[in-house]
Structure formats: structure tokens, C-alpha cells
């Protein structure tokens, strides 16, 4: 076949859409799985540092195996490879008496939802004119809610199918934890839609570029490189950003941000809300009976959920891939790459923050979490909606 013909075929709109989508999915999936293993390493290292320990610092390049005199420790970075290899090569022990079908199904149900969430997250502006979102759909945020909550099924099924008491308690806890945070999580995000008027994550980011990130909404019409050269313009746009409505809206949006972020902790089963796992009380919680790759899938699911959750927070509240002054991908592929980098940096910072919180706070008691969800966040989130409505209706520019 002629190369021109192939090129023509590949640039036909629907063919172009299909192969770029596949390529984007493939790359993002692999990057995320790599990030998971880096996150596990970061978790171990940060926890060690917080507790005045050294953390993994031995596994590096095993020169002694290759006939060398001394191993190269490499700051323990080899641990990132050693951990998955250990999990992969372990015996996959399935206890007698488990419900086999659901026992095998559960880890997949935990692993799949966070990866599905990644589909709608805009992880960059555009590269060579290709939008850096796998699926740019109008129900973006609703889709995240719908899919992310599915992973609770995996945990509950794992607890139930294990036919053992500790996993069972873990599964039960997970489902009741879900009903106590999910509602306030959904409600907390409503002020965002009232302010921005869109559910599409890409539009949400465009709005934030123009009006400032939702947690720091102080620049209208965006910063750009051109503006930097004209200080007068820059000053004008900064002054224009200081309107009363903007300042007042910042309060409900911050409340939204806090509630949503805390709910993300609960959603991803991270401390202080890791009740389904609760090593000290429930042995291993819902994955007590799991071994080898089945266990690794739970592990992977938890960290992928962290990644997806941080991605959602970044996209909704922290301006996604945007950074003031830096233009988007339409100005050249280099800027497109920079945008992707910015997104990953923001997500990494949030993940590090989650790790940091994990090694700071003790676990909430079971009833405390329910109380926090139902009596704390739920009324505040409801009140927040009215507050936003009042500000939008009565305070004008």
C-alpha cells in the first residue's frame, strides 16, 4: 500500500480518534501503574522519615550476583522493582471454603474503577492538536462519582467471599463508610457547578484558567506571557480580580474543597479513614485471606485510587494542568509537554500530602466517622449550597 494512502486513512477523523485514544489510554495506563510503584516506595520512605527511620535503602543493583565485590545500594530505589516481583512470584494461596467466583472477582472490581476514572481526567492541554483527555464527556464529574463508588463493591464482595470473620467486618465497614461520606461528597461539589456552570472537566479547567483556580480565584482573564511584558495590564487584571463576589465565593469554595478532599481520603480508604483495612483491629481487613497477585491488585487498586482521586481534586479545584503564565499546548508541543508535567507535579504533591496525613493522624473510630459524615459534613455541604446561591444571587460585581 502507498504511504500516502495509509496517512490519509490514519488522519480520517474517526480513525484518528480511535488510534489516538488507544495510544493515550495505553500510555496513561502504563504511566499510572509505574506511578503506583513509585508511590509505594515514596510511602515507605516518607513514613520512615516521619518516624525517624531510614526506610528501604538496600535494594539497588545486585553487583554481587553478577560477580562484583559490592552491591550498589542506589538509595534503595530497587525496592520499586523488588516489591512487585515478590508479589508476582508468591504462591497464590486460596483458602478452602471461600466462594471461588467472587473471591477471584473482587480484586478486579477494586482495581478497575480507579483506572476507569482516569479516562475523563484531562492530564494535559493538547499535544500536536490531540486533546490530552481520553474521553472528553459532558458528564465528567458525575462519571467520576458513579465509577469511583463502584470500588466499594469489590471490597464488600472480597469481605463476604472470603468466608472469614475479619474480612467480613472489613467489608461491612466499607459499605457503611461509603454511605456516610458519599452523600456529602456529592453535595460538596454542587457549589462548583453553580459557580462554573459546567460538569465537563475540560470546561471546568478552561473556566479556571480564565477566572483563577477555585481555591485561589484571584486572576480574571488569565495570566499570559504577553501580559507579563506589560505591567500595567497585569496590575489591571489583578485589581479586577479583587471583586466582592469573588472574595465571598471563595469561602464556600474552600468549604467545598475541604469536604471533597476529606471525602477523597475516605473514598480511597486512606488513613484516617482506612476502617475496612484497619490492620491493628482486623488483621488485614477485607484482604486478609488474599495472597500474591490477588493481594497486589487490591494494593494497586488503592494506590491507583489515590492517583485518580488526586487527579480529580486537581482538575476540579487546583486548575488541572494549568499554571499561570504558562500557555497551553496550542502554542507548541513543548508547552503541551510542560502542561502534562504540571499536572503530574500537582498530582504528586497531593499524593505526598495524603501520605503525610496518613503518618500524622490516627484512625477515626467507626462511630466517629459516621458522625463526621452525617452530622458534620452533610449539613455543612447543604448549607454551603445555599450560601453559594445567596452570594451569586445578591452580590454582584
Amino acid at each position: 500500500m502507498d504511504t500516502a494512502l495509509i496517512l490519509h486513512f490514519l488522519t480520517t477523523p474517526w480513525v484518528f480518534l480511535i488510534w489516538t485514544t488507544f495510544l493515550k489510554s495505553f500510555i496513561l495506563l502504563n504511566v499510572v501503574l509505574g506511578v503506583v510503584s513509585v508511590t509505594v516506595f515514596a510511602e515507605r520512605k516518607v513514613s520512615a522519615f516521619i518516624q525517624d527511620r531510614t526506610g528501604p535503602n538496600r535494594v539497588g543493583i545486585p553487583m554481587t550476583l553478577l560477580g562484583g565485590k559490592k552491591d550498589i545500594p542506589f538509595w534503595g530505589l530497587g525496592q520499586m522493582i523488588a516489591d512487585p516481583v515478590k508479589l508476582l512470584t508468591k504462591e497464590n494461596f486460596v483458602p478452602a471454603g471461600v466462594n471461588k467466583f467472587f473471591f477471584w472477582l473482587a480484586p478486579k472490581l477494586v482495581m478497575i474503577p480507579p483506572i476507569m476514572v482516569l479516562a475523563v481526567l484531562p492530564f494535559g492541554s493538547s499535544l500536536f492538536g490531540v486533546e490530552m483527555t481520553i474521553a472528553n464527556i459532558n458528564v465528567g464529574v458525575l462519571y467520576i462519582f458513579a465509577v469511583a463508588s463502584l470500588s466499594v463493591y469489590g471490597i464488600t464482595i472480597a469481605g463476604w467471599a472470603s468466608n472469614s470473620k475479619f474480612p467480613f467486618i472489613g467489608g461491612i465497614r466499607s459499605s457503611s463508610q461509603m454511605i456516610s461520606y458519599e452523600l456529602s461528597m456529592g453535595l460538596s461539589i454542587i457549589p462548583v457547578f453553580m459557580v462554573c456552570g459546567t460538569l465537563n472537566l475540560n470546561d471546568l479547567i478552561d473556566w479556571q484558567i480564565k477566572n483563577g483556580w477555585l481555591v485561589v480565584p484571584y486572576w480574571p482573564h488569565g495570566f499570559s506571557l504577553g501580559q507579563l511584558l506589560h505591567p500595567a495590564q497585569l496590575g489591571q487584571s489583578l485589581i479586577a480580580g479583587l471583586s466582592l463576589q469573588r472574595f465571598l465565593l471563595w469561602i464556600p469554595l474552600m468549604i467545598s474543597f475541604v469536604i471533597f478532599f476529606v471525602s477523597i481520603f475516605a473514598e480511597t480508604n486512606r488513613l484516617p479513614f482506612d476502617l475496612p483495612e484497619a490492620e491493628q483491629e482486623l488483621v488485614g481487613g477485607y484482604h486478609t485471606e488474599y495472597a500474591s497477585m490477588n493481594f497486589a491488585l487490591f494494593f494497586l487498586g488503592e494506590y491507583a485510587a489515590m492517583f485518580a482521586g488526586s487527579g480529580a481534586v486537581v482538575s476540579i479545584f487546583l486548575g488541572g494542568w494549568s499554571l499561570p503564565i504558562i500557555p497551553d499546548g496550542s502554542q507548541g508541543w513543548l508547552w503541551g509537554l510542560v502542561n502534562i508535567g504540571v499536572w503530574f507535579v500537582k498530582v504528586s504533591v497531593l499524593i505526598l500530602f495524603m501520605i503525610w496525613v496518613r503518618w500524622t493522624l490516627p484512625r477515626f473510630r467507626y462511630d466517629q466517622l459516621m458522625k463526621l459524615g452525617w452530622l458534620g459534613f452533610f449539613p455543612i455541604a447543604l448549607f454551603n449550597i445555599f450560601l453559594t446561591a445567596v452570594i451569586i444571587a445578591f452580590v454582584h460585581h
Partner: protein
Amino acid sequence: MAIVVNRPKLTLAEKCYLPSIVAGLAITWKHLKRALFNKGIVTMQYPEEKWDANMPDWYRGAPTLVTDEHGKDRCVACQLCEFICPPRAITIKPMEIPDNDKWRKVEKRPEEFDIDMTRCIYCGLCEEVCPEQAIYLRKDYSITGLNRSEMVHNKETLYKLGGVMNGLVFKWNELK
């Protein structure tokens, strides 16, 4: 009478958690920052760094046999340690000291003396029971081997680990 402990009255700031969470984060951040610059880390890098110098005199390590100042093995093969050993780690094969030997009047010595270190529980009963003060728990703790037979200490190894012990040693140390 039961003591009534009233719940403390919490201020609003305490009730909404956030200030104390921030305070906690500040504490952990301090530790993280310190550790990042390699300060304040308490971990000991074990095979390279050891705590041996700080080990107390009454440390109960591997049991060993000792010789006295004349180079004579103190053990007279009475087999009391063999009988008292709770996990039965000790096996002794006694022999009579031949007539032409300098120490003939001692009459007995062990021909073979094996301590199975896979069985030994480091309880120190052998040391307590020994009437001749011939067996001592020394400070060796990392006893390793590639197979079971390497883990059995024979007479030669035991004397090598034990060394020489001069005079009478007070073995009823209360800490031991």
C-alpha cells in the same frame, strides 16, 4: 463508689478537628525535614554497625566450653548439662582419661561434645548446673549456617568460642 469522669468541654476549634490536624502535620513535617537532611535518624545499619560494645556482661549468647589457666578443659563429662537441657540440644560422649595423661586423676573428659544450635533456647541452665564451671554463655548471637550439620557446634568449635576462663568465676550473677 464509682468515679464519674465528665467529658471535657471542647471548644469549637477542637470540635472541628482541623486546627489540631494542622498542628499534627507540623510536628510530622518537622521530623520529615530533619530526616531528609539525614539528622535524627535512629536506625542502626545492622551488619555494618553493631551494638556489641554496649552488651552487658550478663548477656546470654551461645553456650561455649572454656579451658582453665593450665590449658586443661574444665569439662569432666558429668553430663548434668545434657540432662537438664530443656530442648535436649546437648549430646555428650564421655571418655576415660588414659593412664599416661597428665590429668589422669580427673578421670573423665568428653570425647565428643555437641550442642545443636537449632535447638538451643539460650536459657543458660547448662551454665547454672555445671559443677565445674566449664560451660558458659558468651556473647555470640548471630549463629548461622547453610545446613543443619553446620548448626551443630562440636567440641572444637565450642572451645574456640569459649576461650580461656581464669580462676573461679561467680556464675550466680542475679541478672543472669
